């Protein structure tokens, strides 16, 4: 067991690769075998990832660390580890992948082998991004993961899939190459001859240079999040991707942006990060409002969910920009929530599409009477998505809003508007699709959830609820790492921090006091 624990992260990364190779070698015709193998490998990955939770200590610092020589000439090592920021994101990845495979069991009916192979490779890449502790390794996973996603959208997507796939690829690739140059410049100026993240964090960079390096990295991450105004690839990619692609894209891929800020951009370039925090905060709130307003007017269900992602991730970025422990915990938690609720929404929309081959809201109406179970699940996930107390979304958004108050009360007030708008666009959509009299005769024979579909949705609904009521189980693991990050950055930026960071600046800090705020 201890041997497994020592190499647990590597096993998690490479198990899907082994699975992908095994499936690639199988015969093209044995599609069921390939689906089963894919499910077995990804489920085994999920089971193993639970060992991470079991062995995880609630302290700051990296755990399950593994180091190996890789390219010694450049000081590049294979270094992986998890802490509170990445732990749940890894679990989210291993959790969503088997569900995505199960969810596309029947909707993917051609080139099954390649589909399963790409899904597994994608999983490996995503886990790699979340656990890499070496910048080179991080970049390798970050980019390598583009390729399977590109194929998933381009081969199994809808009508405009090729346009969407190429746009997705070029946007994210353009963002990340600048980050690569930033890494190279950092490597040179730090002069420590290593790409190890911890070593580089300990080697301070001249603040003037930091600005450029931070901007280069921030661009890569902001495109991935995606933050307004870098979000335009997202609706295309989401709408054109097959269900499994949308689920993974929304569920996991977008989290890499926020995670990149927390793991790479902020620790490496703290002074610059503090300087740009107000800008990020403002863009985040614009994203919240803009995403919600655009979602409000979408005639297409999938587009609506896609734009709601822009709004939700605005919250995540607001919490990161605020940079208080509470805000960061909220952001990480909200990333998980978004993965679950938006992932589930994409599954649901996909299931409706499988039945009717349309996603237009106007084609539906009164579905409650025809498919009651589906409606019930949809409603619960909607409530989770609009942050209803009792569901996970509430905890995340609440923590973010509370944590961001010291940063900027104005932004918090504006962001709260976004919460209301979210309720608006989701509930209005629910009303038009599910309530009233059935309007379209084509919908009269729709079958309700099948057993397989229920098997996909039940874990998601259960988790959305569980994370809403038992949030401390999750947040207590995130908190030490978030706290350590805040302290680390404050120590590095003390002189500047007095001007712009809430908690260490007395005048702002007093405004954070709720009692005083009421007066």
């Amino acid at each position, binding site marked *: 067991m201890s041997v497994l624990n020592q190499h647990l992260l590597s096993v998690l990364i490479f198990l899907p690769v082994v699975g992908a190779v095994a499936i690639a070698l199988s015969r093209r015709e044995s599609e069921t075998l390939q689906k089963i193998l894919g499910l077995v490998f990804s489920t085994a990955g999920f089971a193993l990832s639970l060992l991470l939770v079991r062995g995880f200590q609630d302290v700051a610092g990296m755990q399950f660390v593994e180091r190996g020589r*890789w390219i010694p*000439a450049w000081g590049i090592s294979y270094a992986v580890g998890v802490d509170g920021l990445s732990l749940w994101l890894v679990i989210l990845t291993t959790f969503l992948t088997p569900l995505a495979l199960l969810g596309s069991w029947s909707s993917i009916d051609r080139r099954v082998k390649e589909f399963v192979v790409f899904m597994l490779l994608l999983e490996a890449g995503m886990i790699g991004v979340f656990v890499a502790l070496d910048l080179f390794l991080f970049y390798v996973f970050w980019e390598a993961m583009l390729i399977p996603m590109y194929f998933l959208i381009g081969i199994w997507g809808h009508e405009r899939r090729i346009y969407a*796939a190429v746009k997705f690829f070029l946007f994210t*690739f353009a963002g990340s190459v600048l980050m690569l140059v930033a890494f190279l410049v950092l490597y040179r100026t730090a002069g420590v001859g290593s790409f190890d993240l911890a070593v580089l964090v300990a080697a301070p960079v001249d603040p003037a240079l930091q600005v450029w390096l931070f901007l280069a990295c921030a661009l890569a991450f902001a495109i991935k999040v995606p933050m307004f105004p870098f979000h335009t690839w997202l609706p295309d990619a989401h709408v054109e991707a097959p269900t499994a692609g949308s689920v993974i894209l929304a569920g996991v891929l977008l989290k890499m942006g926020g995670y990149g800020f927390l793991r790479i951009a902020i620790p490496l370039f703290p002074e610059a990060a503090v300087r740009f925090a107000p800008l990020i905060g403002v863009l985040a709130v614009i994203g919240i409002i803009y995403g919600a307003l655009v979602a409000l007017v979408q005639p297409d269900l999938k587009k609506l969910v896609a734009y709601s992602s822009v709004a939700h991730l605005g919250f995540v970025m607001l919490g990161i920009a605020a940079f208080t422990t509470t805000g960061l915990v909220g952001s990480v938690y909200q990333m998980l929530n978004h993965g679950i609720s938006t992932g589930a929404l994409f599954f649901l929309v996909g299931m409706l599409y499988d039945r009717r081959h349309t996603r237009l809201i106007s084609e539906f109406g009164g579905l409650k009477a025809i498919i009651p179970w589906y409606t019930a699940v949809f409603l619960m996930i909607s409530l989770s998505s609009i942050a209803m107390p009792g569901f996970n979304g509430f905890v995340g958004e609440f923590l973010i809003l509370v944590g961001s108050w010291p940063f900027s009360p104005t932004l918090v007030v504006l962001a709260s508007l976004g919460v209301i708008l979210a309720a608006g666009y989701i509930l209005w959509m629910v009303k038009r699709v599910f309530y009233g009299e059935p309007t379209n005769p084509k919908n009269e024979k729709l079958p309700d959830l099948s057993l397989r579909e229920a098997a996909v949705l039940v874990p998601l609904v259960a988790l959305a609820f569980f994370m809403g009521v038992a949030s401390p189980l999750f947040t207590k693991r995130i908190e030490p790492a978030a706290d350590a990050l805040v302290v680390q950055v404050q120590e590095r930026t003390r002189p500047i921090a007095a001007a712009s960071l809430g908690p260490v600046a007395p005048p702002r800090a007093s405004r954070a006091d709720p009692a005083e705020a009421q007066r």
Partner: protein
Amino acid sequence: MSGELDLRPLVPAIIVGVTGLVVLLAQAFTPKDRRAPSAPLSLTGLLAALAAVWLLASGGGRGAVLANAVSADAYSLFFQALLLGIAAVAVLLSPSYLRANGLDRGEYYALLLFSVVGMLGLVSSLELVSMFVALEIMSIALYGMAGLYRSRMESQEAALKYFVTGAFSSAFFLYGVALLYGVSGSTSLDRLEWAVSTLTTDSAALALLGAGMLLVGFGFKIASVPFHMWAPDVYEGAPTPATALMSAGVKAAAFGALLRVFGSALHALAGEWQPLVASLAVITMVVGNLAALAQGNLKRMLAFSSVAHAGYVLTALVASPGQAGEAVLFYLVVYGAVNLGAFGTIAALSREGREPLSLGDVAGMAERRPALAAALAVFLVSLTGIPVTAGFVGKFYLFNAAVTAGWVGLALVGVLMSVVSAYYYLRVVVAMYMRDPLGEDTWARVSPSATVALALSAVITLVLGIYPAPVLTLARIAARSLL
């Protein structure tokens, strides 16, 4: 030396040259109704030469011989091994292609081997006139190969164009040699190095002019903008395996010589020529990539991509010779494998005088030929420079060298142009994987020897992308011997 004639450093080149003659003779003595064993003979010769390189590397024979004109230092041996490997893969790709296009004649292999002799000489010359002779041996053989399709206009055009521009560039090169001779009183690189490090202001201008002329001469061979005009036409018109050899081998050999002259002999002038090389790198990357965007023909697209890649390699030359050497050497290995693979895929599908040249020709390939499509996708992804392929590690190394030398702008242009290149490389992947096939699959079954060649290229591309350390170490050792 003591008057003893030591030919050991020349053994690989001699083996290849003799094999070329044997191939010609075998052709002459084979009855008309039988096929001469040209390909197996060539392959044997190349592998024997590779073994000789191996023996030289593990044993002695490293000193400079023939009046300090030729050396078998680690640098030469690295390049010789690389060039022989590239040639061997090109030979593996050739038989089925030549048969499919009615070109199955012994001359092709003889010319190929003779051009390899020139390449081997180019990378191991320590003296400018020997270098020029080697350059000409290589080029003249290639002119012949480019024009091998006697019945096709494009091939004739390619040969003539290549010949005329080649002669033009040779003139520049020679003039450069003459000017440098004027500076140093010698054509030996050692003497030249010493002379340029003790320049007076008068002779500095002369030395720079000479260096500039040499750069123009090399610029033609590596196909850097604005000396690249021949490349698309020649790459398009030549038989595809010969194109593969040109893009992988000629470029490697020319960069090998370029780096030796500029990185080592003319290093004292680096402050003067580096801005020039940097601007060449920028326009080469920009023009090469933008022009590739506009190409509909796959061979022309790969030709412009090959121009663009010359630009990427040039970015590393602004670094210190050691670091530039490592980066360039590693990149040329990667680039050789990838380009052989990309052109090789096109060649392997050739049938009855046709080859897949348009996106429509490869549409839906992933469903009909999954393994072949996957291999080509790997090559294209590697050309784009995305992990986990060797192309990423190679570009990382080049741009790292430029950044370390303080030329961040060069690296920026490089990565941004890589994004542009993603568009035209991925267009092929889109066609293969995301479009439906047009019409029947009338392309050839890939022959066993071509399969070996493509599999080898693909494996090298992936292995160097995942575990590059051993080759990096070799490149480092080789580059050190330049200093």
